[in-house]
């Protein structure tokens, strides 16, 4: 047996095709410890749904991945590179991480099409005509092609959120983050957004989804993460998690939301 034939031991974080690796991540808001020693590997193509009660740190966790929230301890790497702390490097990283917000946050003074093309044109340097062609395709894909020339305020919440998903997709991100994407929507508009997300999940997009939509977690997630008090309490495939949650806290949470 020759030494050369032996494969080098892979670093733990690269043992599989990990795209996002969080290692011992800690964050405080003053005295409040919002993220406690978070360790999380997200594989390429994986759909991770993060659930948990309000204040459990799930939105914060999601926002640390594109550094909208800074962290105080630990490391986060994207595609093997650590997150830069500020400046142009950070902007470049954020261009590779799409984000969909609870309150849509479409640029209020720009048309829907401009919302989708601004990033590619200004950040990526794509030609305007090419960006518009691609933008219209994406808007068609999420079902708001007819609204391309309207302003965000003229659209329904569901349409705005679908346009926001198209805006994130236009940057061709490696991973898409969803921070409670349906929580600000009227009930009848939740499904149209979830449908788009399911389709994305099926297309192989790597997604981190913070949500209260258990139906989406069951049907689209590869893995469910349950957070409470700033820690990841449980991490399992959806079938296992919903059928046999191991922690008391998760059982309690599920009994409260599924009873109604």
């Amino acid at each position: 047996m020759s030494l050369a034939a032996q494969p080098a031991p892979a670093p733990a974080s690269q043992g599989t095709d990990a795209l996002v690796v969080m290692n011992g991540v800690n964050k405080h808001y003053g005295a409040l410890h919002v993220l406690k020693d978070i360790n999380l590997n997200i594989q390429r193509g994986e759909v991770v749904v993060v659930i948990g009660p309000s204040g459990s740190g799930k939105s914060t966790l999601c926002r640390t991945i594109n550094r909208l929230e800074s962290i105080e301890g630990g490391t986060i790497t994207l595609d093997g590179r650590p997150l830069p702390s500020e400046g142009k490097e950070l902007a470049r990283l954020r261009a590779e991480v799409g984000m969909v917000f609870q309150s849509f946050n479409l640029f209020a003074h720009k048309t829907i099409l401009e919302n989708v093309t601004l990033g590619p044109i200004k950040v990526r340097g794509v030609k305007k005509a090419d960006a518009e062609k691609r933008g219209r395709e994406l808007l068609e894909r999420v079902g708001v092609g007819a609204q391309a020339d309207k302003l965000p305020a003229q659209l329904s919440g569901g349409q705005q959120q679908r346009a926001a998903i198209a805006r994130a997709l236009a940057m061709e991100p490696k991973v898409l983050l969803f921070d409670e994407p349906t929580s600000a929507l009227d009930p009848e508009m939740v499904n149209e957004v979830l449908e788009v997300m399911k389709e994305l999940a099926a297309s192989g997009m790597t997604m981190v989804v913070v949500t209260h939509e258990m139906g989406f977690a069951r049907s689209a997630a590869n893995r469910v993460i349950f957070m409470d008090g700033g820690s990841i309490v449980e991490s399992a495939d959806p079938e296992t998690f919903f059928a046999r949650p191991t922690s008391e806290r998760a059982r309690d949470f599920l009994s409260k939301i599924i009873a109604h």
Partner: protein
Amino acid sequence: MSTIINNLGILWSGFAMTLALVAVSSVAALVLGTILATFRVSPVPILRTASTTYVEVIRNIPSTVIFFFALFALPQVDLQLDFFAAAVTALSVYYAAFFCEAVRSGINAVAVGQLEAARAVGMTFGMSLRLIVLPQAWRSVIPPLINVFIALVKTSAIASAFGVAEMLNVMERLINTDATAVLPILFTTAVLYLAITLTAGLAAGRLERKVAVSR
């Protein structure tokens, strides 16, 4: 009345001078004020401190003192300006402080999610301000911006005392040549100032209605 008609040319030249003074100064003050406002919201502490100090010092001094500085202090540091340039400098420096505060309140009124969304698509802080935050900030503060503009128009009359042949200066000269025509001259002067300020107010109202839907 004949004094007015006989002196239409000189009145017009005064009016044109005021317009030029106001146009150049208001653009310069708005640009400088906007830069100061972005400093005040920037993540860099020294920029915030510098800009806050500027605003608190400048806006709390009478404008006439700023005019004196422009005319008498700048030459001391070998910066010799003609009267017009000195007046423009004084008006711009003074009103930049007020424009800064108006624009800053506009920046604060833009939802924080707009900046987050801009940063999330990979824009730098500067790009986010320029492309997303400032355009919305200006729209939300059109009325206070016009207030500052109107104050600037009126303060431009101080330049008459510093050798700029603008409207008030022309008015004084006309009164000196024909003291019997004081009332028509005063009246005409007031109307000409109103022509500038009221037009600005009307234009602002229109602009506000036009952009109302997009915020």
